[in-house]
């Protein structure tokens, strides 16, 4: 953690909203990313990320400065998203479905072809994540996209390391089964991307 960040945290602890806004600016992407992968829609992700930062600001007095701020705030975002999924049972919608084009993520690429491919990939990913329960999903997201170790995931999700290992094993098994099902000819919405990825990885 750099000195500037520590200064922002100290100022935020003293009640300075602008200092915390700088922390929000710095960590908005990972927090939004976790919320998006957990909840599946940009709107829900925006709301959850905003709420996670509000909760973090309100609990900043309890933040232990020896811990990583990123880990702390991601743990708030993950747990909030898990609660949201449990309470509201948010429906994860497929991104590659034309009917739900309004749910598309922010424009990430210059060419429409690339954007369409990325949208398709997002749909694939969300489809795989949907097959998991809330806690398994959070564990997968933290491991794949945030490079968390088993211990860090255990600390974030309040589980034991062995529980995290078994949850990740089960999650990979479920996702592999789902992926195999998606590659079958009777699964047209995701077939083209699945085939493309199968082709890309055929040399692995």
């Amino acid at each position, binding site marked *: 953690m750099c000195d500037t960040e520590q200064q922002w945290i100290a100022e935020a602890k003293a009640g300075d909203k602008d200092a915390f*806004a700088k922390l929000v600016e710095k960590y908005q*992407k990972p927090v*939004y990313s976790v919320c998006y992968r957990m909840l599946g829609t940009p709107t829900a992700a*925006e709301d959850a990320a905003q709420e996670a930062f509000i909760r973090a600001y309100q609990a900043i007095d309890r933040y232990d400065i020896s811990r990583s701020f990123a880990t702390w705030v991601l743990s708030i975002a993950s747990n909030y998203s898990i609660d949201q999924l449990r309470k509201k049972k948010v429906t994860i919608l497929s991104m590659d479905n034309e009917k739900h084009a309004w749910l598309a993520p922010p424009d990430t690429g210059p060419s429409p072809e690339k954007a369409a491919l990325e949208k398709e990939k997002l749909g694939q990913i969300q489809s795989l994540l949907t097959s998991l329960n809330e806690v398994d999903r959070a564990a997968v997201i933290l491991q794949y996209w945030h490079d968390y170790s088993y211990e860090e995931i255990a600390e974030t999700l309040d589980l034991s390391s062995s529980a995290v290992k078994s949850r990740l094993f089960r999650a*990979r098994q479920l996702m592999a089964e789902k992926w195999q099902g998606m590659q079958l000819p009777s699964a047209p919405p995701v077939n083209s991307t699945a085939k493309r*990825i199968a082709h890309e990885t055929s040399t692995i």
Partner: protein
Amino acid sequence: MKHQQYETWILMGTELNQEQHRDLQSHLKGCSACLSLYKAAQQINHLFNTSPVLEPSPGFSTRWVTNIEKDENRKNQLILGITLSVISAATLLLLSTVGLQIRSALAYFPQIMLEMVTLVANWIVFLNQLWDIVTPLVRVSIKLISPAWLYTIAVSLSGITGAWMISLFRSRTLQKELSA
């Protein structure tokens, strides 16, 4: 080695040593189920690793500042509402209690008024009697004491008062000098 061991290796996601890797590769050549699982795991890893970066729309932190201010205002209004409700409830309770007391006292109102009038009348009678005693005493005293004594007493009292005032003045001057 059992078939399940290969599934574990594929799904655990941990690095295999060279011997394990060779063992797995040779097993995959003869086991279509494990090969299919292996391919699926590899393809999922590839999909996740090449997934697009997710970013919120621009102005996220500005929206956060607006949201936190709204949240704080909402909380302040809630606290104010609760405080006002408690004060209103307490006032209502107090007024109700006083009202009930007055209502119960109304039955004894004539008696209370009579007692108050009696008390005031007794005081007037007492003061009148005191006046009747003190007035002749003062008149007689003035007549008995000679004018010379009266002057002497007046001068003495003036002297004592003067000395007291001078001592007060001097003590204040002394305090000022000490503090300076």
